[in-house]
């Protein structure tokens, strides 16, 4: 008995996912739990296991397709069984092979934007001599463009669609002469170049072929298809800078406590004692939680002009994974001991690397920590994750000169870069938070309260 496999709902807010790739091909036999496909939300990518054993009878979507959740994406069953009843009717066309035009499939098959200045005509002329505009699939023209009857005839005879911009006639009416001029001035494409354009390449510079024919070599490189995660990061970062008043404060904290505690933990574990493996980053995160408890105004969200002080600390931490930047969230971090916090961070980071985080595990942070210290960074400018009002960047530990009476001694310090939203957090409170945080860090051994 054939069964359909649905696109799962991978989080409360997820409505559609990209089918990144098929791990099994049509006709392959699959065991229950074997990975069928890789799918991607705007937050992370996931592997889709087979719900039952059988043969993969049919797949309904090409890699790259954007599929609504709960839509059938493939059928598993016994060879010979009818699969047509499972075919998702409404969106069948959206999964068709790449075609020019703004089909709602994916960035990979979306036609390139018009590149030439004369590309005013979203048309579909079938010859080699088609103007560039003929294959670039510009968006549908606004309805207020009018064509003269002769222009309309010319457009029909030359396979041109209604132009996207006004013509030279009265009231912006497009005249035949406008179309003739643009048709003649439009660059011509070689057969190969036209096919490449449909793939997303763009014309760069003039045609180098005979009579300025645009050859494949005149096209640049095709655009790199952004992952859903990358698109989301790009949008969020732009929105962050556009909608907040960010500034960054740099400071350093005496790191001798961190280093000492870390060494003690290592030594204890080497002796076989049952002590959690707590990293320096875990300690800093624990110190951040303590500091936020002391200065709750930084544990807040600023949404549509309204400020919400959050009673629980949901601490996000940036993870650099193969799939891109992910920010898992430790919920109710104020209730965790340092060992519990470290365990939670470790578990979430592991799932981030495996791509098995759920969307809910990556949302709801009230404050974020990001660490570039292991890459030797001494200070940087973290970008806020709105609606959060602050983010802490953790830097490398390095010795700094300290005057002690008449002597200069070198003491390990850890760099701290705090970005705040000046809409909510002024400079002095931001600086005070760093001061409180420094005290927590310098006092970490007693705060951690480990029986070492």
């Amino acid at each position, binding site marked *: 008995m054939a069964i359909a496999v649905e696109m799962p709902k991978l989080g409360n807010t997820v409505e559609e996912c990209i089918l990144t790739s098929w791990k099994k091909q049509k006709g392959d036999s699959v065991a229950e739990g074997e990975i069928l496909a890789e799918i991607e939300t705007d937050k992370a990518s996931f592997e889709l296991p087979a719900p039952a054993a059988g043969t993969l009878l049919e797949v309904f979507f090409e890699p790259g397709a954007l599929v609504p959740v709960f839509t059938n994406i493939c059928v598993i069953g016994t060879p010979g069984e009818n699969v047509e009843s499972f075919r998702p009717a409404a969106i069948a066309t959206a999964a068709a092979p790449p075609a020019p035009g703004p089909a709602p499939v994916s960035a990979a098959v979306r036609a390139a934007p018009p590149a030439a200045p004369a590309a005013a005509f979203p048309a579909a002329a079938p010859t*080699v001599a088609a103007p560039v505009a003929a294959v670039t699939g510009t968006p549908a023209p606004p309805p207020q463009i009018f064509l003269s009857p002769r222009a309309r005839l010319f457009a029909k005879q030359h396979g041109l669609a209604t132009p996207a911009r006004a013509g030279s006639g009265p009231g912006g009416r497009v005249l035949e002469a406008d179309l003739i001029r643009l048709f003649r001035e439009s660059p011509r494409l*070689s*057969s*190969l*170049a036209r*096919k*490449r354009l449909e793939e997303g390449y763009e014309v760069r510079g003039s045609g*180098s*072929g*005979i009579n300025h*024919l645009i*050859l*494949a070599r005149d096209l640049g490189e095709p655009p790199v298809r952004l992952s859903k995660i990358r698109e989301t990061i790009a949008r969020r970062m732009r929105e962050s800078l556009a909608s907040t008043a960010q500034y960054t404060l740099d400071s350093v904290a005496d790191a001798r406590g961190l280093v000492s505690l870390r060494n003690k933990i290592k030594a204890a574990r080497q002796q076989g004692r049952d002590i959690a493996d707590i990293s320096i980053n875990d300690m800093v995160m624990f110190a951040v939680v303590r500091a936020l408890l002391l200065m709750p105004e930084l544990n807040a969200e600023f949404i549509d002009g309204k400020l919400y002080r959050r009673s629980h600390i949901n601490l996000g931490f940036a993870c650099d994974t193969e799939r891109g930047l992910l920010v898992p969230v430790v919920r109710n971090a104020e209730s965790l001991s340092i060992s519990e916090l470290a365990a939670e961070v470790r578990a979430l980071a592991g799932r981030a690397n495996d791509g098995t985080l759920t969307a809910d595990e990556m949302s709801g942070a009230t404050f974020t920590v990001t660490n570039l210290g292991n890459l030797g960074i001494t200070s940087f400018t973290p970008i806020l994750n709105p609606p959060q009002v602050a983010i802490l960047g953790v830097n490398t530990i390095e010795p700094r000169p300290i005057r002690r009476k008449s002597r200069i001694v070198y003491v390990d310090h850890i760099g701290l870069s705090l970005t705040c939203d000046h809409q909510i957090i002024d400079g002095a409170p931001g600086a005070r938070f760093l001061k409180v945080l420094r005290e927590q860090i310098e006092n970490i051994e007693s705060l951690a309260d480990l029986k070492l």
Partner: protein
Amino acid sequence: MYDLIVLGAGPGGYEAAARAGRMGKKTALIEKQYLGGTCLNVGCIPTKVFLKSSKLITDCKNGLSYGVRVASAELDWAALIERKNKVVATLTQGVETLLKRSGVEIIRGEGKLINRNTIQVGSETLSAKNILIATGSRPATPPIPGLESAGVLDSNTIFELPALPSSLAIIGGGYIGLEFACFFAAAGTRVTVLEMLPQIAAGSDHDISSRLLAELRKQGIDIKTSCQVTSVERGSIHYRAEDGSAATLEAEYVLNATGRTPAVDGIGLEAAGVDFDQKGIKTTDRGRTSVPGIWACGDVTGRRLLAHAATREGLVAVANMFGGDQRIRYDAIPSVIYTHPEVASVGKTEEELKAQGVDYKKSLVPMALSGRWLLENASGGGIAKVLVGAKYGEILGVHVMGDLASEFIVAAAVMIENEMCVSDVAEIVFPHPTVSEAMKEALLRAAE
């Protein structure tokens, strides 16, 4: 002050000078030896005169296959040389007429660059806004002891032979060696070709060169591949055979056909600061050298040692020196080996595509698919091979072994030049009956 001085009157130089002259530019052309260069005097043209005659002999000998009884056919060396000289004279006269009508001043002598815009010819010093170097190439002399011996010829001196030799040993199985081998073998000379590489016709697609090797051997040409000539003396060649053993070959004459070397020496490139090495003058695809105002075209650039490539490079350089913006596209320059059967190619070989990691599809069809080819060739074989991109079917390479291929390969060059795909070719009508129909068939099958 000239607008342009061209150094060398081969097919690169004279065409460029004539173009500049017709554009109304004050142009001089310096030539030390002969108008028309290697191509007209000791290259393309004289060898094709020879090959026309040998083809005639072959056809006569095979006359009965075509229903024609010919009592005997033999080469008259003196008459052949006379015809060759007549053809060459007609063509060089044509070049001179063209240059004069174009208003080009022809200066006889050896030109040498003094600096970036001055050339010395004898005692005269000429200056120009632009200088186009088109000095061509000369037969290569690899370090084989004895090459300078009497009885060792090159592709220039072979035309000075007093009579048809009884036997000829040719060092080099490239297009020069093979064309001479074909001629002399048909004319009645016992011919041996010694080639260093495992294949003949280096640079050709292997599907073609392996079949050409078989065809030429069938004609009685002894071709030894993978053998290294160690020394030469009058009447014999010593070489290491494919199995590594030392061997000696007796022959009345030895022909050194090991390729050609760009003629970069003695023309003052150092004085003018032009970037070059023994492989040629470095040029851009717009014909520029490293020195502004100095341009180069043809064999001296070492790019494509072909007369038609030289002409195109020269014309591109002239266009660019006088305000144009043209580029040479090297991927659609056809080449021909005028053996019998002849080989015509354009674009990439399968070996090149493999080396470049290109995803391709190929088709091979026998020339006998063409009725015209079949009736023209009572014996022998031929093949048309087409290489296209796997995804879009764009034409990447066309290689044809079969007589008359040289006359229609330009159609494939046009297709490649315009980046046509095989789906476009399906709309092109080929005349019937012609040999080109075999190429069409190969093109269409490549799409399947």
